[in-house]
């Protein structure tokens, strides 16, 4: 930026700041009010959409959660009964929570690890790097329905590719999705098919680490492991944090793969929370109860996200921020 532009910018900033102070002190000048109005008008399409399509349905769903509502018949006020029934009397809610928690813990941990290691490999100066990056990202672009059908075929216990392969090694493969003990682990394995997404974010993070840090460390005698532990990992913690938050939020809302591959079975072994919510809403037509389940899930995800965010102070390193601030 040329010096004169810089001075101009500082002056404009100063004027705006003073104008802001005057506004706060005197209730606002005409100019500031008009500019504020113009600003609100500019963002009003988004605001109107946000209120109508997000805030409105959100508040409506909370209202519905306090009723017994079967779409066609008028809602009947039941107070907190839906919440009480869900948490105290409906065993499937706890089944769904247990299944979802196991899925989330395993999926998030494995996905973070696999995508991190994959990104690390794809950050190396090797031949045909772009091809590898595209290949590993490609599954993210495959529609969930198509990949679900492919995995169903692969995990078929009798004719599937995986058990056929295992049989060549003399191993009798399990029933995978058809067995209550194996169905959830199978879905977790399938979920790793989509690690290309976080991998790409890690890759961008790796490439954002200044090479000067590595050079300085090398000059100081740090070996590869020391550089990885003391430079790469700390510098990547903001990206790790981002992927962790997204992973937790998304994994607790897993639906499509489970819906397409197991429908929650066998014997509710893969009944994830959102699938149960869906069944209550669109198979049992219990919209009030389903709304209550949605709010329970919202609270769970909110608390978990809060926990992750709060914990970030102790393990996420931001280059421009001092420790303890």
């Amino acid at each position, binding site marked *: 930026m040329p010096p004169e532009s810089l001075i101009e910018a500082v002056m404009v900033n100063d004027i705006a700041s003073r104008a802001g102070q005057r506004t706060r002190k005197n209730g606002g000048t005409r100019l500031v009010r*008009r500019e504020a109005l*113009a600003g609100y*008008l*500019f963002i*009003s*399409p988004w605001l*109107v*959409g946000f209120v*109508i399509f997000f805030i409105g349905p959100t508040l409506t769903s909370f209202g519905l959660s306090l009723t*017994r509502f*079967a*779409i*066609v*018949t008028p809602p009947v006020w039941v107070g907190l009964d839906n919440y009480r029934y869900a948490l105290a009397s409906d065993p499937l809610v706890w089944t769904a929570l247990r299944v979802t928690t196991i899925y989330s813990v395993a999926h998030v941990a494995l996905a973070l690890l696999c995508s991190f290691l994959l990104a690390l490999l794809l950050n190396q100066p090797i031949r045909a790097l772009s091809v590898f990056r595209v290949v590993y990202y490609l599954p993210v672009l495959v529609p969930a329905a198509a990949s679900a*059908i492919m*995995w*169903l*075929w692969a*995990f*078929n*216990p*009798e*004719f*599937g590719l995986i058990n*056929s392969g295992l*049989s060549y090694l003399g191993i009798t493969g399990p*029933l995978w*999705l*058809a*067995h*209550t003990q194996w169905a959830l682990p199978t879905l977790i394995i399938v979920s790793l098919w989509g690690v290309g997404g976080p991998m790409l974010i890690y890759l961008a993070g790796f490439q954002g680490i200044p090479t000067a840090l590595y050079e300085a460390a090398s000059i100081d005698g740090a070996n590869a492991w020391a550089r990885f532990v003391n430079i790469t990992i700390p510098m990547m913690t903001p990206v790790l944090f981002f992927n962790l938050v997204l992973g937790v939020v998304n994994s607790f809302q897993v639906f499509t793969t489970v819906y397409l591959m197991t*429908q*929650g*079975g*066998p*014997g*509710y*072994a893969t*009944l994830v929370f959102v699938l149960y919510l869906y*069944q209550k809403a*669109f*198979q*049992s*037509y*219990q919209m009030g109860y389903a709304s209550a389940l949605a709010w329970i899930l919202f609270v769970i995800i909110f608390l978990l996200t809060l926990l992750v965010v709060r914990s970030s102070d102790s393990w996420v390193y931001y280059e421009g921020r001092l420790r303890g601030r």
Partner: protein
Amino acid sequence: MSSTSRRTFLRLTALLGAAGCSSAILAACGATPPPTATAAPAAPTTAPAAAPTQAPAATSTPAPAAAPTQAPAATPTSAPAATAAPAAPSAEVRWAQSSLGEARDAVQDQMAQGFQKAFPNVKFTVERRPYDQYFVKLQTEFVAGAAPDVSLMERNWSVPGAARGMLLDLMPFVTQDKINRDDYFAEVFSSYTWHGKYWGTYLYGIGEAYFANKALFDKAGVKLPAANWTLEDLLSISKSLTTGDGPGKQYGLDFGYNAIWAGDATLIRNFGGKILNEQGDKAIWADDPKSIAAIQWMVDTMYKSKVAPTPQSTQGQPNLFISKRVAIEENGSFTMSQKIAGLKDDLAVLTTPTGAAGNFPFNASSSWAVLSSTKVKDQAWELAKYIGLGAGQEIVLKMGIPGIKKLAYGPYLQQFPNLNLQPVLENFEKHGTYYVFTPDSDAWWNAASQALGPMWSGEKSVPDAMRAAQDAVNAVFAQRPPELNG
């Protein structure tokens, strides 16, 4: 020339943008026109094959009590719905269909053209919607006061819809029009009757049958069974037709239709058992030795005699019967066109085998319901009658078994000269049955299927799994809101 300042320009742009977006959003939230409404074909180019002699003998014309001025002129005929036309043009009838492939869409188009030709004074529009979430969307439209007048209705939607007051009872129209029920298969009326009322006319039958690959029979030197074959015959033949092992194994039998509401239910009935009590509000099968014996028989074909693949083996696989890896498949007649395409002259269609208590093949159909919100009841009934009980059945026989017996035994059978379907149709007529539907059918089927899952994988014994399924189904019934009891 007046100039506009940059600030004024931006302000005006923002104002216009905000106003435009707000009005668009408000318009979108307001009264919506019918979704993807397409005008009914005005000039029928392919009129339905008129076969009035094969139509039912319901000769009286509709005489709607509510709007006598719109009553069609009395024109006694052997194809009443095709020829009787209301005297005066009336409000538009909206007909909602689902899109289920080109062949069915073409048949629905022809039905629309046929109706328009028969009732030139009735204005109507066809709305073809995706099948996915069809019933949920229909409920939403109903609440919003924007529901169509006539709609596709599946069996598992019909009772929930009727229980919620969405549908119009068609029994008064049937009585009024003196429709002779003897002309129809019993299921045309019984499968859509709930609490003594009639909630929808017939689309086409999807009767349960056994499909056989004649080439595999010939190869094994096994003769096709006679129409009165039994479950013992089925097991014995299936053993003869099962060969090999591992991924290349050929199975004698596949329960392709083994859902709780079809194949399993048929087996249970053939064994003399029951799933629900008469009122349809309690599962009783785990307390019924005959029901347990039926399901045990089915499981034994998979794990004991190993003549049938387990459900998990067929998951995600191309159809084993069409792939010629299964010699006999139990399934609905709606799969017949696929099988003819796959096996050609090697296909044979067999009756369902008889059990200790008899033979009760599943036979039912989707339906055409009239929504209770309609303002044009009489015209809507005319449409539902035409397509479900009248001349529309002459067109629909290209897709499935028509509900009118004369059409089924006549032009329907004539389409398949190489398939001996006569005994199969006779079996439907004599013994065909449908399964009990409740206001929460989807929910309890899902609960039962979940609980039976570990039985199919061999993790649980049949009695234990059926007990779990019974408890799960009864838990669903216990949650049924009182307003859904009808």
